[in-house]
């Protein structure tokens, strides 16, 4: 199913992260991690190459530990659906510094483009809102991406949830490090925490 005027994922992510400042960015398994890597490697990037369904919870753990830092989870619709209960958990905790961004192409792009539930029935914005995330919205234009990006820096008005419908083109992979210990140690180092 091709739709006109859908946004292009790499432009969306680089637009969101252009002024990221001290934000910690978690990328969900799959293309979201490649998008974050494509926007530029950063010592506060948390790349996931597995743990499908875990991106939001990893973001929540960081957000609770570092309430003064913006934490942004960027993931896909399939990964979000697998961890859909985590929206209820976030809605209960209400971390004001957490932003969840879903790049929704309505397919499982890594595995052959099979349709996801969002293609037919599931409204993720409605799910997020009914889970207690009051600031839940859909964004459909690059102008709105630009306007939204500074809000992610506000650590006293979250949590917020954004669904962005993107086109389903499979782009060339931009590979980040796959070494989890390296990734976490680097983030901890950036926050001033040493090894054990």
């Amino acid at each position, binding site marked *: 199913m091709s739709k006109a005027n859908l946004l292009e994922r790499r432009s969306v992510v680089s637009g969101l992260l252009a002024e990221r400042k001290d934000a*910690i960015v*978690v990328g969900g398994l799959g293309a979201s991690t490649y998008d974050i890597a494509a926007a530029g490697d950063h010592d506060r990037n*948390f790349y996931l190459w*597995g*743990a*499908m*369904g*875990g*991106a939001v*919870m*990893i*973001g*929540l*753990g*960081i*957000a*609770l*530990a*570092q309430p003064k830092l913006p934490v942004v989870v960027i993931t896909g619709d399939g990964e979000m659906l697998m*961890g859909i*209960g*985590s929206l*209820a*958990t976030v809605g*209960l*905790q209400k971390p004001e510094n957490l932003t969840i961004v879903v790049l929704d192409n309505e397919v499982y792009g890594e595995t052959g483009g099979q349709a996801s539930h969002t293609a037919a029935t599931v409204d993720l914005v409605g799910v997020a809102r009914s889970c207690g995330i009051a600031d839940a919205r859909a964004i459909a234009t690059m102008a709105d991406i630009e306007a939204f990006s500074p809000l992610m820096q506000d650590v006293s008005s979250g949590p917020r949830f954004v669904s962005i419908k993107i086109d389903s083109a499979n782009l060339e992979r931009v590979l980040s490090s796959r070494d*989890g*210990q390296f990734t*976490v140690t680097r*983030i*901890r180092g950036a*926050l*001033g*925490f040493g090894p*054990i």
Partner: protein
Amino acid sequence: MHARADALTENAASWPEDIFAILQRFDVRQVPYVPDAGHSQLIERVLGASSMRAVPLTTEEEGVALLAGAWAGGQRGVLLMQSSGVGNCVNMLSLTQIFRFPFLTLVTMRGEWGEFNPWQVPMGSSTQGVFELSGIKVLRASHPDEVREVVEAAAGQAYNACTPTAVLLSQRLIGAKVFTK
């Protein structure tokens, strides 16, 4: 569930207090849980502790991911769950090897020692094996007077040596759930 919870309220056990004190001493800050009657006293203590953040989960695997994030953000945590929830965690337990972070979970056992409900037995019987296959060290406490030293050892190796560890709190310790009187 109510029978066991009521029994705990009427005659509060001391071992949950021992666990709470150990968690405080190790500076545990995030406590994700899926409720279990066997953990009810400890959960109450955590909910009342200003230094700890209790995080109720919809499924146990959320807690594994939460603790990985907590560690990246500089905090320690512990996951509280029942044996039936261990199976829900299996893929997410990969994170303990991928990140080598200080993972500690305290698991109240069902499906053993006088169990009434056969549906608890399969997962209860495979709980230890699932952990071991996932690279998690398993310690067990079956008597009130050994809980402190077992949990202390588990917390020590988890937080000091980044050795992912599960403590199984036996049904013999917490008492079999009473369905009928």
